[in-house]
């Protein structure tokens, strides 16, 4: 589990135009710069917003990645719900559903 590096990549992507350029032009090399599992790489590449949510990516980071990848607000909400249906509850972090719902 290298959730930290998934979030770090998305944080830098959101903040740094140079990282966005690399994302557009050399995605595989960029992914290789972070310690990511195969599942994490796939979720980023597809993109599988629902899986990223279930992995525990902070929504304040994921929200912008979803927008970058063309998800309108309602589609972003639905992608997270679909992720929960397909992969189960959020695995770690702030959004685990112990008692909140």
């Amino acid at each position, binding site marked *: 589990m290298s959730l930290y590096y998934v*979030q*770090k990549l998305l944080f830098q992507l959101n903040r740094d135009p140079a990282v966005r350029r690399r994302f557009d032009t050399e995605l595989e090399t960029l992914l290789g710069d972070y310690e990511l599992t195969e599942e994490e790489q796939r979720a980023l590449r597809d993109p599988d917003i629902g899986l990223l949510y279930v992995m525990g990516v902070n929504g*304040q980071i*994921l929200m912008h990645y979803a927008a970058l990848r063309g998800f309108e607000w309602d589609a972003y909400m639905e992608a*997270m719900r679909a992720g929960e249906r397909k992969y189960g509850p959020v695995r770690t972090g702030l959004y685990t559903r112990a008692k909140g719902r």
Partner: protein
Amino acid sequence: MSLVFAGVCSHAPGITGRKDRADPVVLDAFYAAYDRMRQALEAARPDALVVIGAEHFANFFMNNMPALCVGMGDHYEGPIEDEEWLGIRRARFPGAPVLSMQLIQDMMNDVDLAYAQEWKFDHGIMVPLHFLTPRADLPIIPVNINCQGPPLIPLKRCYEFGRALKRACDARPERIAVIGTGGISHWPATPDSGRINEPWDREFLDRLLGNRREELLAYQDDETWREAGQGGLEIRTFIAVAGAAQGHTGELWFYAPIPIFAVGCTVAVMNL
């Protein structure tokens, strides 16, 4: 001089980014409350505005996350988000680096602070400034309280930070305004986005605007997380303003749950 204005308001990105999807009657009343706050802020004739926000990984990440950080930049820019997504054009805001350093140095007698000379504003600061300083001409001193994930600074330390800010402002000749921006109950950026616990919000606002310190500091994070969502952890910004305005009560100028904005939208001002 000292603090000449203190208030709190919401900052959710939907407030500007999804404004077309809200009930126009409620939206107009909410925007009117922001504008009333702008007028009150301008009437206070501040030399600088301290914005206590809860940023969302625009500048600070888990590799080096300050519990409390104060901006000391010459200028700032924002929004970091896509302009169309947020509904706010990018702008440059003047800083107040000399005053910032003086305040930070003074506050460090009482609280441990990080500082930052470079800072990009996200919606947490941009949404309030969009309404309150539309000409981007008032020097800004941003403050961040980490509310995004544990370990989080205890509420009593947020209140103490506010008191330290007030003491530092008392020692300066400048006229200084402060606002806190955050959610109350909300579950932003989750499938529960739009859920709002209005009774919880109203109870919190009652404690806040009564400036009842012990009752404010009685909230426990696990209980807040259950009842008010992970976004409820942002009450830290409001509690800091309560500390800065210790001894003063406040007035609620607007509160309404607006689910498409994912938060109980709030504008309130302390009577200094």
